């Protein structure tokens, strides 16, 4: 299978941080069944730092890999730092995505943003 690079396939094969966080501080839900991708991102925040992140995803290989990667990228990051993670950063961390799959990285960015918004709203 050479549609995806090695890194994508690694994260697809062995997705990191699968699951939910029962008492999450922020939850981001994006996508819908029509477009074929649904992502849920959970974060746990302590003193402005993301200490845990988990996901559940219905979607293609790229959707699963970007979900996995975004959880890896945010763990240990400050909220402000996490806010600056773009879809490109996620795609890059995966060694690139095929053009028709870039929308998955956008979805991951959106899920993250929503989870952060959710956290800030709850915290406020």
């Amino acid at each position, binding site marked *: *299978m050479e549609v995806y690079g090695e890194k994508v396939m690694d994260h697809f094969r062995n997705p990191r941080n699968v699951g939910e966080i029962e008492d999450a501080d922020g939850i981001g839900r994006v996508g*819908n069944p029509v477009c074929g991708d649904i992502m849920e991102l959970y974060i746990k925040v302590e003193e402005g730092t993301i200490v845990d992140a988990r996901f*559940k995803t*219905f979607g293609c290989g790229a959707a699963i890999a970007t979900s996995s990667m975004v959880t890896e990228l945010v763990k240990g990051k400050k909220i402000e730092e996490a806010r600056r993670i773009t879809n490109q950063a996620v795609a890059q961390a995966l060694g690139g995505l095929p053009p028709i799959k870039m929308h998955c990285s956008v979805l991951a960015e959106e899920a993250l943003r929503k989870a952060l918004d959710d956290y800030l709203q709850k915290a406020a």
Partner: protein
Amino acid sequence: MDNTRKIVYLDHAATTPVDPVVKETMLPYFDEVFGNPSSLNGPGQRAREAVESAREEVASLIGARPEEIIFTSGGTESDNAALKGVALARHREGNHIVTTAVEHHAVLESCRFLEKNGFSVTYLPVDADGIVDPDDVKKALTDKTIIVSVMHANNEVGTIQPIDAIAKIVRPRGIYLHTDAVQSLGHIPVAVHELGVDLLSASGHKFYGPKGVGIIFIRKGAKFASFLHGGDQERRRRASTHNVPGIVGFAKALEIAVAGMNEEAEKITRLRDRLIAGIRERISDVRLNGHPERRLPGNVNCSIAYVEGESLLLNLDMEGIACSTGSACTSSSLEPSHVLSAMGLPPELSHGSLRFSLGRNTAAEEIDYVLAVLPSIVEKLRAISPLYKKKVKAQ
């Protein structure tokens, strides 16, 4: 993926390997009988003979006359030429075309092109099994209708359409009937007069022939305007130097496919039903797409709820099993399969569809291997699916 491992190939609806006898038959036409059939000299005429005897063979195998067969570059060209060729030839008689919502993109996109150029197209619905109602065809016809195009068998779900019944409605009105038989030729009986069609498209690589060669059958007397303009080949209905090895290979592959059809269909149907039954036994919330009986022998299309098709496919591929998602392979669009949508499937089910297409060499052990591997893949993907979670909670 380990390249040396034997792959369980269950993607025959996408393409088939060239049969060894077909390949052998083609070989001399690359460098021995290599002349240009349009050249008057000896090498040219020997190549021409090969083309003409392939044409006779193909014609007799589908119950046509040799002059009713045009060789093309594949199913897509045949579909384009049929639709556009008739549209152009008959546009003074009318500008209305009837087709179905479940056609291959080669037909649908040709229709969209024609819509941009003054034609109007009716896209007929199908029922939950993917079947077109001949009554719907009847209602759609107007005095402006010049051609009706309904595929013989569907490439995604394998459903076989009642072409003969549709022909009885369409043809007495002087309207042409075209059928895309790309998925059916070589697999189930295809006889142009029994189907009652005026035009028929087919492609070699779907029945163990070479890629890049197809045919259009055009009933003698049917109006048709050339699509590829140039030299005088194919009685001026399709220009370009003949693909001699391809044409010879097409004919040989069809000969072999027709000779072994009954036996093969029986064997494949048995394995198909074993796969369907096995999946249903082992996996919950599975839906078989397409008609349970009126389907191609080799087609298994099922929707596995809560998981997405591509990720299933990739996981199967990692285990050495090659299949397809139900939806168009390279589709750059995010929309679910137009076929499954037309059959009324909700998007999450059509995104979760898999197509296993069995072939001549598919073995029972391969089916069993799929049945051994698939359940745990589904389980793994469901475990990370937010949809499955919801379902579990709802129970």
